[in-house]
């Protein structure tokens, strides 16, 4: 499933990007950046509350399909610039990490 399709179905807000990436690496949840760097599969839907520019760099370099900001977290200007530079699709969910992941997992038929 494409990121934008999932986003639409779950009513998440698209903060940045076209959502054209295919989700091929399942779902990954974590906020510590080098754990994400080392363990998030390429093409994964990464759910976090870390909305800073460094998170955008991690998404870019580790090839996640997108970043989903849980708990209605918002990027600052630097983070937004980072998302643009790395062409990262950033979505925003108003729910906590677990609920966000559980809803996505159902749709992706992972659970």
């Amino acid at each position, binding site marked *: 499933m494409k990121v934008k399709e999932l986003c639409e179905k779950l009513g998440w807000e698209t903060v940045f990007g076209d959502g054209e990436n295919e989700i091929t690496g399942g779902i990954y949840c974590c906020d510590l950046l080098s754990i994400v760097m080392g363990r998030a599969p390429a093409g994964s839907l990464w759910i976090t509350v870390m909305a800073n520019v460094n998170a955008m760099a991690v998404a870019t*370099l580790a090839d996640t399909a997108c970043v989903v900001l849980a708990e209605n977290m918002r990027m600052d200007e630097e983070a937004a610039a980072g998302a643009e530079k790395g062409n990262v699709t950033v979505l925003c969910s108003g729910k906590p990490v677990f609920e966000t992941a559980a809803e996505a997992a159902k749709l992706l038929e992972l659970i």
Partner: protein
Amino acid sequence: MTVNSLHYHYDVPGDDFTRAGVASGAVKQILKQLGLNPETVRKMSIALYEAEINMVIHGGGGVIDIDIDDDKIVALVSDQGPGIEDLDLAMQEGWSTASEQERNLGFGAGMGLPNMKKYSDELEINSEVGVGTSVKITVNIEKSGEQRD
């Protein structure tokens, strides 16, 4: 060194967390444009980012030199910072001296050096207290691998 080898140099300022990752991002773009296997690109991107961010956070900034040959990519990341006192300890998963402020930004899991080890084909670290740290990351370019965008 072959005739076809490419070289790139980056100066990385210290303590500017917002700029950290800029050089790694630029290198990733170059590797992608060369049409290298995505997994090869990903390996170097991850290992180089961890070295770059360590240089910014712990090493006070420094330089990155990239050499791309037919069969491998080599990144040399060097700083003249405080150095690493006990490298074996630093290589352990979870060991970190990151500050409270750095932890609040998402750093300090103590996974950067283990990630470099995991994603490089060869890793050489030289560090001396009071002199600095240099990290040499080698990622092989698989000839047999499928070449995709």
